[in-house]
Every structure is written in structure tokens, then in C-alpha cells.
């Protein structure tokens, strides 16, 4: 084990940039603080405030017995989130290891499958999974001939795990790639075996990425209500029950109060966690990897990676085929009628979706980096508070975040554009992911490198442009990718923001699925997936031209 201790002086090194340009830093603090207050604290506060209003007057009735009545739901929610995290982390680590240390051949395909899996249009993918692995699923029933019941805790656990592996594995991969090859070599030179090196050097160095993916998965599972609604059967969690209380029973105060049950314990867990800083040491000078893992080990990794690819090929293949067959399962003849139907969808909803998602994606990855950078030099208490605020919208079921925006915007004396509300809600809802991603990246920059840049005569701007940004680039790309895809496909927060005049593509998809029209839904889904994939490819190209090694 290498000593990875830092002196206190080094720990604060990155904030030196701030010290010498405190005006810029103060300005950034002001901007991001204003953003968080306007677009997070205000709407979330408005939702929580509603829980105290019963028929227009102050009342605590929603809180009476709230905790004791929902004890089981709280337990189930956290059990599920913990379970999903425990299942997702090892699987995504395995796939990330395969990508970093495995053979070049096939790597692109696995990455493509991972990226694809992050663009899962909600409901459509659930539907595809049921058609493949449901009680009458193509694979489970027609091929393997066994009948099982996917509804319940196990169904939700599996479906959430599969849907989150992509994002977690991409983040893990990015972290592992940033691990310094020189340190691995040093360990090998000192006589450690490749597996020992992996266990004692590489994986610990990639810990920030692993911690970030774990937390993102945990939070996302807590606030996910779509999957439990769809495959939960009689198993329900807080998020889905809150949704039901709001939309079905129509008990506004109680539904809002249930969010408190979700937010408070979750923030508690997260605060405990962030007490420990993810410090890291990684000059990132040597990109070349000399760590050669034993081939039996790699083959083992391969099995998991390709199983994942096969699964994605099945699911997305089903969606693509569904968009060109008359009726999946009954009439397999070829048709272009579903694809032609896309043309009859309103072009402006597709345009609006694209623009909103671009704005949200770029905004969220930029704000994520700025915040990560500011927090790096901030006091622990500030860090914890800001982190908690950023996590709030991610912790709430999306529907409630949307309700918050509606509560706020309908009280304003002036009209706020629908698209602006959509963009901002997506931006700030996904900020938690972008911030954690950026932090993981920042944690891998060695403060001594900053001294190096400064000793060579570079100013704080040089540090930012030539050191921080290049290292963070792949992490920013991930932040963008996640927010953009989520904004293109999400319906939860948006259903309360779109108006009949201003629709978005995801709503069109949602309507087809509600009609049980798998053909039209998969055509729209295919269109969304292709669009997101193209934008991702462009973003990848755009951000990856100059290599990281090009330090001054």
C-alpha cells in the first residue's frame, strides 16, 4: 500500500486559485447561490410548505401519525435503495474494469451499450422488459418455457439495477482511466502481482468515482416511483405511495408531507457519508497502462460485460423492431406506418425537447464543475449544506419537483415560459449527478500539479484552463450526457409544466404508451434514442479532440 497522505497545506492548494482571484470566486458563489435559491430552495420549500396547509389554513394534520403509519414504507424504500446500490456497484465495477484493462476489441461496443442503456425512455423500456422477461415474456416463457412472477421487490430491484448499471459503469470507467499508470507500474516493480496491484492500488485510487456512483444510484433509486409502480405489484415504496397520494387520492398536504419522510432520513445518510472526504492522489501524467491482468480474470469480466451487451441488444432490438412491425407478438409483418406517424407528431415538440435538453445538459455540467470547484475550497459546513441543497431535487420523486415549479410559477405576477421551466427543472434535478461526477474528477487532481503550473509561471486562469478543465473534461461529458438524456426522456416533473401549446417529445411517447400502442411508442422511442445518441456522439467528438497529456 502506498502512502497517500497529503499535508494540510496541499489539501487547500486548489483553493489558492480562489485566493488570488477572490472577486471572480465571489461572483461565482453569488451566481450559483442565486440559482440554487431560485430553482431549488424556493420550489422545494413551496412543496414542503403545502404540507402544513389544510383547506387554506395552517394545520399539522398531515403529520399526525405520519411516521408510525409509514414505517414499513420507509424501511422498504431504504432496503430497496441499498439493495440496488449493492447490486449495481460490483456489476458496474466489473464492466468498467473490462473496459479499462480488457482488450481493445469490442470495447466500443460495450461502451455503446452502456451509453444506450442510459437513454432509456421510461415506460417504453419497462414495457420491453416485460415483453421479454414477463410472465408471457419472449425469453422467459416462449424460449425457456418457465412461468415466473416478476412483480414484487425482486422485480423492482432487478429492473432498477439494470437501468442504473450504465451510468455507474461509465463513471467508474472514467475514474479508473484517470488512475496514474506510473503508480501501478511502481507497484508491479516492487513485486506485487497484477491482481494485488488492482486491489491495493488501482481500485483504491478510483474510489471517488465508486463513491460517487454509489451515492447517485442510491438517491436515484430512493426517488424512483415509475419502476415500483410498473413492476412493484403490491410492493410499494415511499416515492410511489407519495405519487399515488397526490394523483390518485388527491390529498395534497399528505402527499407533500410524505416527501419529508423521504428527504430527512436520506439527507441524514448522505451527511454521514460526506463527513469523510474522498481525497486522492493522481498526477495523471502517465496514461499508458502497463498493468496486465491475468487472462482468466479478464475472461471472467468479459462474461458480465457481454451479458450486459446482450441484454441491451435484446431490449433495444425489441424497441427498434417494434417500430417497424405491425403488432409485436401477433403480426410481425413489416410496416413503416409507426415511423411515418412520427412525422405527424408536432415538429415543435421535438425542437422544444432538444433545446430544453441542450440548455439543461450544458447548464448542469457547467454549474456542476463550478460548484465542485467552489466547494473544494469551502469550509466543511458550507460544503455539506450546499451538497444537501443540491441533492434535494434528486431525492424527491420527479412529480413533486414539478409541482414545486408549478406552485412557484403560478404565484409570480408575470408569465414564465414553459420551456424555461422545463429546462431549469431538468437542469437542477440532475445537478446532483453532475456535481458528484465533477467532484469525483476534481478529487483526482493532485494539488502539487497546481504548484507545478504556478512554478512554471502560470496564473490561476492557466491552472483552470490547462489543468482543471482538461482533467475534468470526461467527467463533464458524463454530466452532460446524463442530464441531456434524462431531460429528453423524463415525464415525471414535466407533466405539470408542459401546456397544450408547448409539448415535448417525451409527452408524445408517454401518450402512445398509455394507449397501449407499442408500435407508435417504440417509433417515438427509436427516434428519441437516435437523437440522443447523435447529440452524444457530437458532444464526445467536440470535447475529446486534444489529449489530456498536453500539459504546458
Amino acid at each position, binding site marked *: 500500500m502506498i502512502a497517500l497522505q497529503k499535508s494540510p497545506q496541499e489539501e487547500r492548494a486548489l483553493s489558492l486559485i480562489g485566493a488570488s482571484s477572490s472577486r471572480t470566486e465571489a461572483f461565482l458563489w453569488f451566481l450559483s447561490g442565486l440559482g440554487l435559491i431560485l430553482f431549488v430552495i424556493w420550489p422545494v420549500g413551496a412543496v414542503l410548505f403545502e404540507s402544513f396547509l389544510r383547506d387554506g389554513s395552517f394545520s399539522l394534520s398531515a403529520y399526525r401519525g405520519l411516521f408510525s403509519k409509514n414505517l414499513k414504507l420507509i424501511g422498504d424504500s431504504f432496503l430497496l435503495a441499498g439493495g440496488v446500490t449493492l447490486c449495481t456497484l460490483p456489476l458496474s465495477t466489473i464492466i468498467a474494469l473490462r473496459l479499462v484493462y480488457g482488450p481493445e476489441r469490442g470495447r466500443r461496443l460495450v461502451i455503446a451499450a452502456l451509453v444506450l442503456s442510459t437513454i432509456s425512455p421510461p415506460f417504453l423500456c419497462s414495457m420491453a422488459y416485460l415483453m421479454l422477461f414477463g*410472465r408471457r415474456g419472449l425469453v422467459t416463457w416462449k424460449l425457456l418455457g418457465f412461468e415466473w412472477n416478476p412483480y414484487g421487490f425482486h422485480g423492482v430491484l432487478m429492473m432498477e439495477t439494470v437501468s442504473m448499471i450504465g451510468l455507474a459503469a461509465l463513471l467508474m470507467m472514467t475514474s479508473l482511466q484517470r488512475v496514474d499508470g506510473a503508480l501501478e507500474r511502481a507497484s508491479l516493480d516492487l513485486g506485487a502481482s497484477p491482481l494485488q496491484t488492482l486491489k491495493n492500488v488501482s481500485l483504491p485510487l478510483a474510489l471517488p468515482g465508486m463513491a460517487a456512483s454509489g451515492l447517485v444510484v442510491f438517491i436515484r433509486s430512493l426517488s424512483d416511483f415509475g419502476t415500483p409502480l410498473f413492476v412493484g*405489484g403490491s410492493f410499494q415504496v415511499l416515492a*410511489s405511495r407519495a405519487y399515488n397520494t397526490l394523483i390518485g*387520492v*388527491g390529498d395534497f398536504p399528505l402527499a407533500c408531507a410524505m416527501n419529508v419522510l423521504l428527504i430527512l432520513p436520506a439527507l441524514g445518510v448522505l451527511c454521514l457519508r460526506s463527513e469523510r472526504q474522498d481525497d486522492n492522489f493522481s498526477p495523471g501524467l502517465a496514461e499508458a497502462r502497463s498493468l496486465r491482468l491475468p487472462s482468466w480474470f479478464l475472461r471472467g469480466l468479459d462474461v458480465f460485460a457481454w451479458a450486459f451487451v446482450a441484454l441491451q441488444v435484446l431490449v433495444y432490438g425489441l424497441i427498434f423492431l417494434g417500430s417497424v412491425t405491425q403488432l409485436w407478438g401477433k*403480426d410481425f409483418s413489416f410496416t413503416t406506418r409507426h415511423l411515418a406517424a412520427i412525422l405527424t407528431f408536432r415538429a415543435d415538440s421535438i425542437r422544444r425537447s432538444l433545446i430544453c435538453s441542450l440548455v439543461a445538459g450544458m447548464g448542469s455540467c*457547467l454549474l456542476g464543475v463550478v460548484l465542485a470547484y467552489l466547494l473544494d475550497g469551502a469550509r466543511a459546513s458550507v460544503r455539506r449544506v450546499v451538497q444537501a441543497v443540491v441533492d434535494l431535487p434528486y431525492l424527491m420523486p420527479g412529480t413533486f419537483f414539478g409541482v414545486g415549479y408549478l406552485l412557484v410559477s403560478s404565484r409570480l405576477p408575470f408569465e414564465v415560459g414553459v420551456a424555461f421551466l422545463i429546462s431549469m427543472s431538468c437542469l437542477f434535478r440532475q445537478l446532483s449527478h453532475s456535481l458528484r461526477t465533477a467532484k469525483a474528477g476534481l478529487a483526482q487532481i493532485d494539488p502539487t500539479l497546481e504548484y507545478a503550473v504556478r512554478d512554471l509561471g502560470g496564473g490561476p486562469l492557466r491552472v483552470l484552463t490547462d489543468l482543471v478543465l482538461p482533467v475534468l473534461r470526461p467527467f463533464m461529458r458524463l454530466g452532460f450526457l446524463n442530464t441531456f438524456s434524462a431531460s429528453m426522456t423524463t415525464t415525471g416533473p414535466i407533466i405539470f409544466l408542459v401546456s*397544450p401549446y408547448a409539448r415535448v417529445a417525451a409527452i408524445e411517447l408517454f401518450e402512445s404508451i*398509455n394507449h397501449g400502442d407499442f408500435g407508435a411508442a417504440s417509433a417515438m422511442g427509436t427516434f428519441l434514442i437516435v437523437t440522443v445518441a447523435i447529440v452524444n456522439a457530437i458532444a464526445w467528438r467536440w470535447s475529446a479532440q486534444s489529449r489530456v497529456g498536453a500539459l504546458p
Partner: protein
Amino acid sequence: MNLFKRVIAGIVMFFFLIPSVWAAEKQGISIFIAYTGIKPILETFTQDTGIKVDYLEMSSGEVLTRIRAAKGKAQADAWFGGGLDSFVAAAEEGFLEAYVSPEREAYDPMFYNEEGFWSGISLGSVVLMGNPEVLAAKKLMMPESWEDLTLPVLKNEVLMSTPAVSGTFYSMVSSILQTMGDEKGWELLERIDANVPYYSKRGAEPANKVSIGEAGVAVAPFDTVLRLRQEGHKLEMTFPKDGVPWYIAPVAVFKGAQNPEGAKALVDWVLSERGQETLAKCTTQAPIRPGITLEPEVQAMRDSNLMKLDVVKAGHARKEILELWQEKFGHK
């Protein structure tokens, strides 16, 4: 510096893009709908009146939540279709505009609100829908009555939604209670419950899941079954012998609508003979106005043994019924 420039370019683009999506162009009227076959109906309306329509599909629960969150500030001009109970609640909370259409003279008063908050446009019913493949594989008979749904052989094969999220299931529950009386009604629902593996939390789900074979039988709206059949699914359907629950799809104008005249024109049109004939052509609900020729299969539904109901009373009893329901079956 290359990358830095790109980031700056990104920021500039970011601020450039925001205004381009700020405002959406508004013309004509906007409506929230929960109604099958809406597209050709509204196209005919636009042809006839020259009023352009923008619509958004939302369940009536979502519409109600949305107006409540906006504290009554109108989110659209008109509301087309959905559960009557939500319309009743919205009228009570002051979200709807009273409008007495000249067309309503032709209608039986049981189908509209006296003050004019809402008017029924068509009648839908709740039926049993089966997946013949699943039933055949398990050697099950297609159930023909509510009583049949309680047969132990159908264990875990019956799909329903919670009445809280679905107007259809609310009307099934409230109709059974109204016609059989509370005691017998709840007892029947409890026996059906024994065969229901879980209650779907979204209204469209039972029919969709049964159409892909996830279970044998769904309780479903009549028009949904016909639509799924049109899409090519092979499905069985029966009108329950012991009474077919029915509901009406209402239309209403929101209070504070931006284009109230346009919204009222829509109400007039859909209640007129022309509008009702268009409904008869485009949907599989039965238009209410007397004297409209129905498609044979819709006529068959109209002629089935529809229960004797007071649908407005059902709309008022919602809160009570749901609370009891939640107590008995809420855990599923």
C-alpha cells in the same frame, strides 16, 4: 486555450438558447383531455369552426392536482373527458366556469350539471376483457359476470387498478356498491380481491398488461378493448351479466380561461348533432344525444344490461368510498 474557448462558446450558446424557447405561440384554444380517438374529433371541430385546438392528454387526477397546485389559475381553456368525480370536485372547489349551452335542451337532465359546470357528452362502460391465449393455456373459461371473477380458479389472473387513480375502476366500485347496497357490494369486492394479485397504480395498465399476456383477465373500459382490438390484439370481451357499470365523459370550461369564447364554442359543438355524430364515428363510447345512429358494436354496448345508477351521486361519494377502499385493499 482551445478547450477554454469552447467552454466560453458553450456558455454563450447557453444564454443564446434560453430566449428561443421562452415563449410558446398561443392561438385558438387549449384543452386537457382524457378521451380515446380525440384527434379526428378535434380536427373536425377545427374544420367546422375555424378554431385551432392544442391539447394535452392528462388523467383527471393529474388535471385536478395541477389546478390545485396552481391555486385555481387556469392551466387550459377546456377539459374534455375523464372521471366525472374529478369534475364534481373541481366544480366544488371553484375551478370551473358555469356555462349553459343552448344545445343542452335536447338532453336528459341526468346527464348534465344544473348550474352548467359540466355536461356529459358520451357514455362509456366497464367490461371484462380476456386474453384467449392465456385463458386457453390455463384451461380457464372467460368470466361472464362479477360473480365469475370470484371463482378460485382465477387466482392471480384478474387485473384491476386502484379506483383512486382510475375513473373506470372508481365507476366499477361505486356502481357495484350503489346497485347491490354497501354490505353485499363490499362483500363481493372482497371476494374479487382474493383473485387480484395487485392493483395497478395507473389506469391504462390492466388492459395493456393483459393484451401482452401478463394476466388472463382485466377489468377494462369498453372503448379500450375495442381500440386494442383495432390495433390487432385478439381479445375476448364480455358484458357482465349481473350488471354493466357505466360512466359519462363530461366536458367543462375552466374558470379564468384565456379563450372562454373558444372553449364555449367547443362545448356547443360537441353537444350539437354534428359533434355527437362525429363522436359516434371516431370513438367507441356512445354519444348521449338522442337520435344519433351508433355503430353496431357500440349499440350492443348501449343495449347491454347497464346498471341503474345515479352517476352524479357516485361522483359525490368519491372521498368516502376511496377511504373505505384504501382501508380494505390499500396495501395491495
